[in-house]
């Protein structure tokens, strides 16, 4: 995310998203639609629940031997004629790609959607090096033309209107195009088809990598993943180390639940299994295949508190159901990965300091955990993150003092009873209809965006005494 945006504090980023009328409407429609599609898909799929358990178990078991599986993956990719690169962090990963571009005279690289390349800010690095990166997923293409970043993991441009998109694609076409999805998609097809045929390098992520066979698996609906891996002379796949799975038997378990969770499809239009560069006898496919394995803080979480976040399939289901994401959208989070899982991944990649505010951007309602295909316990980890943020004194001093005081009050029955009586007295000027709508002083910051329930005339504890 741009440094400029990150200098704005999270509450302001969220505030401006809340004031954006179109964004509000678009988010509501999109997330509601995705929720419905997902639900319908699982309703007609009784074996889905057992498959989710199995998928989770595979992820956990794989982490138990991650060193072994990564070694096996690397051996197999190399046996197929590919090359494997080991990148500790974003900078090393970028350098692998930049060096390849320099050495091989690459001028243009076509990309299929990859969160890993967003994570390492690869496009900016390529541009600085004089290589033109071209995003080819339609949504990503649109936001690249707009010089923006994705706002949803699987629907990157949901925040743009078709009118805005028509302006962007018309500018490339040098003719005015109607704000009609059919017309715009056809124009983008022509524009990008040329790029696929011209590009020297294709860059992809990986939804999975199968250790035993050395296979990189790409799941797309548009077919751009196939183009990028078939037409340019070099293919570079960049993946987080947690994407490796042991075997093809494991792969089909994930395939059965991934698209259902993301878009409600049984399978996405294209699932592409790629093994190394073009093999003897083939007419198509790259001369060279490179696999970049990216750590960037993932390895330390194998035994760390965010371990479960390493199971994530990047389906986006938790974004759609999150009451916070549904209100503020992806950009307000400020980093590559939005939504509930995004907060955890940001903490993993950038440290807990980066999520001092974001750790609180959740109502802890648990909807994310319910829909997660691998049942990641996101709320638990968010609570732990909040604890960590408090312990490491990253949170603002005032916030820490308030919570410390609150902690004391809640821990002592006498203090709690006293506070109820005191609250009842003090709230009198502000209470109405059982709600506190506007409080003075620093408490006003709470009531600026939500009501607080008033202290009841008789609290539960007071009534309980009589009832007994």
């Amino acid at each position, binding site marked *: 995310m741009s440094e400029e945006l990150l200098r704005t504090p999270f509450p302001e980023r969220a505030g401006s998203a809340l004031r954006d009328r179109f964004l509000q409407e678009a988010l509501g429609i999109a997330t509601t639609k995705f929720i419905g599609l997902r639900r319908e898909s699982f309703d007609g799929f009784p074996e889905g629940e057992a498959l989710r358990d199995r998928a989770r178990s595979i992820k956990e078991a794989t982490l138990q031997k991650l060193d072994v599986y990564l070694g096996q993956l690397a051996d197999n990719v190399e046996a197929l004629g590919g090359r494997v690169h*080991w990148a500790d962090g974003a900078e090393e990963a970028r350098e692998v790609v930049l060096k390849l571009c320099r050495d091989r005279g690459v001028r243009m690289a076509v990309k299929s959607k990859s969160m890993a390349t967003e994570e390492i800010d690869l496009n900016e690095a390529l541009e600085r090096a004089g290589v033109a990166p071209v995003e080819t997923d339609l949504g990503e293409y649109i936001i690249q033309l707009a010089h923006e970043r994705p706002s949803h993991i699987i629907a990157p441009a*949901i925040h743009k209107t078709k009118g805005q998109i028509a302006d962007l694609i018309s500018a490339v076409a040098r003719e005015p195009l109607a704000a009609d999805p059919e017309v715009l998609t056809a124009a983008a097809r022509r524009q990008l088809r040329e790029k696929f045929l011209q590009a020297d390098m294709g860059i992809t992520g990986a939804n999975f990598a199968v250790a035993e066979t050395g296979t990189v698996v790409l799941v797309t609906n548009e077919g751009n993943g196939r183009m990028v891996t078939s037409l340019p002379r070099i293919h570079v796949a960049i993946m987080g180390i947690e994407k490796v799975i042991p*075997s093809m*038997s*494991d792969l089909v378990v994930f395939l059965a639940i991934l698209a259902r969770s993301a878009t409600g499809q*049984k*399978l996405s239009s294209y699932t592409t299994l790629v093994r190394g560069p073009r093999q003897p006898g083939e007419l*198509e496919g790259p001369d060279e295949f490179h696999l970049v394995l990216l750590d960037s803080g993932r390895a330390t979480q*194998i035994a760390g508190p965010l371990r479960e976040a390493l199971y994530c399939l990047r389906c986006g289901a938790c974004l759609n159901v999150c009451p916070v994401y549904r209100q503020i959208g992806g950009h307000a989070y400020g980093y590559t990965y939005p939504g509930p899982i995004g907060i955890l991944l940001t903490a993993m990649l950038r440290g807990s300091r980066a999520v001092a505010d974001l750790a609180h951007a959740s109502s802890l309602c648990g909807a994310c955990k319910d829909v997660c295909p691998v049942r990641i316990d996101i709320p638990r980890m968010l609570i732990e993150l909040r604890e960590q943020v408090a312990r490491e004194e990253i949170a603002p001093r005032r916030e820490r003092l308030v919570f410390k005081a609150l902690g004391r009050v809640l821990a002592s029955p006498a203090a709690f009873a006293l506070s109820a009586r005191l609250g009842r007295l003090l709230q009198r000027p502000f209470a109405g209809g059982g709600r506190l709508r506007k409080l003075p002083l620093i408490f006003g910051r709470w009531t600026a965006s939500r009501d607080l329930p008033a202290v009841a005339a008789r609290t539960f504890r007071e009534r309980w005494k009589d009832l007994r």
Partner: protein
Amino acid sequence: MATRAEFIGRIRREVGKTAGLFTARTAPRPARPAEAAELVKRQMAERWPQALDRFREEFERVAGVFHRAATRDEVSAIILAIARERSARGVVAWDPASLGLDLGPALGAAGLSLEAMGAAEVGEAARHRHRASAARSDLGVTGADFALAETGTLILLSGAGRPRSTSLLPATHVAVFDRRRLLESLEQAGVVLEALHVDPSRSMSGAVINFITGPSRTADIELTLTRGVHGPKEVHAVFVDEPVSAETPW
């Protein structure tokens, strides 16, 4: 830049810290994949009619167009009709041996140009020629190594005489297969993929396996479903009652 040993060493240390904490398992796997795949094949020799019905239902659900041909000759007629309806000029197809059909005579008689790359042609010049013809063709004809009923999916292996782009670059893709290609479930597909790996002679020597489930699609502009964004706008499946002697994994 880390070396492999450093990188994996660090991961091994982290993994070591969790020893004994987790008892999860990976997916159950066939102990002998080739035998398991043979079993699938025997099951499907009985159950293919149900699988075909399910395939058709699911394939149409993802906007595929299903055709059934009684004979191999009828396949050419169906392909010709599809080409005519779309005013196609150029057709690109898998090598006749990989396809199990020679479309040349029928298409030629109708005045259509057919590009079918012989499996033996692999040089730089052949590659350029092939790419140009695939890019300008309106119709691509392939086989299907498997047709997966549960999801309405065509599974295609790349290799000599079976280019990846035939099912990708033209606006219309037609896949031809017979009953021996039908699978019921993703689970069976998993068994088959395991067996392909164990026996490299079955892999058709290519680097890519594609699962194709309907046409290319996007909903990236205001969630409006649009077909044919990069890959084909239309996908046709032609099921042939007569056996098609295509070169396939089995």
